[in-house]
């Protein structure tokens, strides 16, 4: 039998059972669509996070207590501003050192309120992290030194508290204490589903007083050059270990953060793709199942074809092509559906999604392979049917 003929016969067979073919394909469609969509979301998220981490500023070292590893719980920080001074001495330039002590707090302005993250910081933050303001000014050294109750609002907080007014010069109550708004950040957007504009910066000294603590959560250092960044990190960690022998410290670079985040997101994407892959597998089992039903239903047809001269191979190929057609048509439909959904998600939701060609090629290839793998057994069974028995079947 000619190959073109075999394709035609397979297609006719699928057409003859439109509904059943469509339902069988549905398993593959959903499997492929979810692989494409989830890989797109994983990839999109990774790309965005990478952009954002890189956007933090160059040659950044983050010094935190504990180890930065997947699965490690955060540690309560033993660091204080004295440790920050010590680190500054190691670095040699106070403008390159930033700190944070952060806590959730309710911000109130008049009748409006917004639960947000209040960050106690030094005046060096915009230089170290490359942040820019939309309005007003940032904190100054004097603000920090005198624990002045002034605040710089993130874009979301400003919108929430002052939807119709200029926030500059207005009062906000943070955890019940009044601060004056001196600036508003330029918006940053979202990352990993977190609103990065949902924060308020106040002088670290004012924040510590607000919460009644001496604690500093972490220190950020902008290294003078890339080459010596690791060595600088080691010196800082050594100094902190000397001051706090009981605690471990880590100094991580953007590259390391990217590596860790990349690992996490890679694992996440992999897990998502695997789950989606399982549904593709289930779809394949469905195809196998339907092909077996089809072989049984068409036993007489098989017997007749054999009687008029079809070789076992002709019959086998016919059913194999049918299975492959089921999964590849399903695969193509699933790809279209996955791409469409990914584009919609990317456009209409805060979740980023990026289509990669390899995921499409993979999804299509896998669906074709699924068709072959799950079609082989029914096809062989059909090819080996005894024509006499087949013709006698009711």
């Amino acid at each position, binding site marked *: *039998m*000619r190959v073109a*003929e075999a394709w035609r016969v397979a297609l006719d067979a699928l057409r*003859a059972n439109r509904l059943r073919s469509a339902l069988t394909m549905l398993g593959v469609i959903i499997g492929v669509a979810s692989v494409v969509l989830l890989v797109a979301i994983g990839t999109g998220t990774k790309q965005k996070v990478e952009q954002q981490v890189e956007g933090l500023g160059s040659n950044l070292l983050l010094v935190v207590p504990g180890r930065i590893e997947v699965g490690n719980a955060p540690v309560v920080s033993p660091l204080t501003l004295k440790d920050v001074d010590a680190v500054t001495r190691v670095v040699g330039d106070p403008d390159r050192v930033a700190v944070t002590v952060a806590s959730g707090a309710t911000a109130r302005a008049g009748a409006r309120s917004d639960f947000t993250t209040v960050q106690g910081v030094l005046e060096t933050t915009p230089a170290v992290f490359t942040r820019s303001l939309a309005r007003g000014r940032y904190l100054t050294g004097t603000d920090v030194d005198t624990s002045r109750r002034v605040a710089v609002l993130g874009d979301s907080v400003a919108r929430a508290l002052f939807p119709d007014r200029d926030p500059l010069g207005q009062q906000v109550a943070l955890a019940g204490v009044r601060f004056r708004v001196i600036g508003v950040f330029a918006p940053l957007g979202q990352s990993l589903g977190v609103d990065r504009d949902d924060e308020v910066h106040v002088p670290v000294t004012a924040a510590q007083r607000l919460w009644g603590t001496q604690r500093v959560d972490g220190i950020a250092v902008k290294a003078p050059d890339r080459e010596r960044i690791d060595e600088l990190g080691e010196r800082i960690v050594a100094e902190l270990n000397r001051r706090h022998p009981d605690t471990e410290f880590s100094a991580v670079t953007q590259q390391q953060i990217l590596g860790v985040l990349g690992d996490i997101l890679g694992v996440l994407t992999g897990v998502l793709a695997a789950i989606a892959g399982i549904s593709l597998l289930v779809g394949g089992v469905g195809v196998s199942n339907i092909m077996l039903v089809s072989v049984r239903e068409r036993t*007489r*047809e098989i*017997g*007749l*074809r*054999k*009687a*008029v*001269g*079809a*070789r*076992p*191979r*002709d019959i086998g190929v016919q059913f194999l092509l049918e299975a492959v057609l089921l999964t590849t048509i399903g695969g193509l439909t699933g790809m279209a559906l996955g791409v469409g959904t990914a584009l919609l998600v990317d456009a209409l939701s805060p979740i980023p999604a990026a289509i990669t060609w390899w995921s499409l090629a993979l999804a299509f290839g896998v669906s074709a392979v699924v068709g072959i793998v799950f079609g082989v057994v029914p096809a062989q069974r059909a090819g080996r049917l*005894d*024509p*006499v028995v087949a*013709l006698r079947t009711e």
Partner: protein
Amino acid sequence: MTGSAAADPRGDPPAGERVPAIEAVEVSRTYQLDGVSVEALRGVSLTVQPGDYVALVGPSGSGKSTLMHLLGGLDRPTGGRLVIGGRDVNALAPPEMATLRNETIGFVFQAFHLLPRTSAVENVALPLVYRGMSARQRRERAAAMLGRVGLGHRLDHRPNQMSGGEQQRVAIARALVTEPTVLLADEPTGNLDSVTGAAVLELLEQLNAESGVALVMVTHDQEVAARAHRRITMRDGVVVADSADPRSAHDRPPSVDHGRPATLVPAPSAEPRSASGSGPGHPSGGSGGAAGATGRLPREVERPEAHPRDAAPGDAVAREGAAGAREVERPGGTA
């Protein structure tokens, strides 16, 4: 045809010019059913010559269908030797068996076995698919074949749009579209009412006579069996009677053998026409030769194209001579 004398086991001089279409020697077929052996065939020997018309009769369960499946290469004997179209099936792998069936055998089943949702012409063309023939060629040949079975106007009808008789005609066209040497029909009229069945039988006999395809038919109709050149009766997996017909394969006298060469030549459908146009002394019995003279007349009435042959006065005498010999075996000679 040439060089076949050596292959002919009988050494019968006139018959020796032909290669047997099918030759079964002491074939048996035993089924294993849940550990129990069922001997469906117990040593059957049979030779089908090109152009033969063999009726297979016997009670239900006597092994007729089993024998038909073996003769058609659809199944393999568990014992004995079976040669189809000059090839020993014991030496053939399944794909070769398939090709052998495609090239030499046409099957007509009691249940028609047409593909549903498939037009008549495509059903008929199906065997050609497995020859790798182009779609256009297939359609041409299938359409021509449907014309020959009187369904030229039904090419694109589907089985569910046709009567049983029409469906069986489609099946017959399908069996013959490959120009096989043997047509195997297992109770071809079993699912048809008597009138339709008679028409289908007539068609089969006519095709056998015209195209020279050997016809082996399982039937319960004694009358039909009587019209065959040869009647084989089976019981419990063995042949209990191979017709006393003098023209049967084994003891047919040479002279009678000569008397119907036209039906033996496996080709020209033009043969009967030239025969009918020839003089009284022409040895060819024409297409009508296959059917007994008495059986012919009523059916001829339905078939206007057959009349010219009857109209030739001398020809009728010639046929009478050929068919008369056949009459010997007929029990009642009823129409």
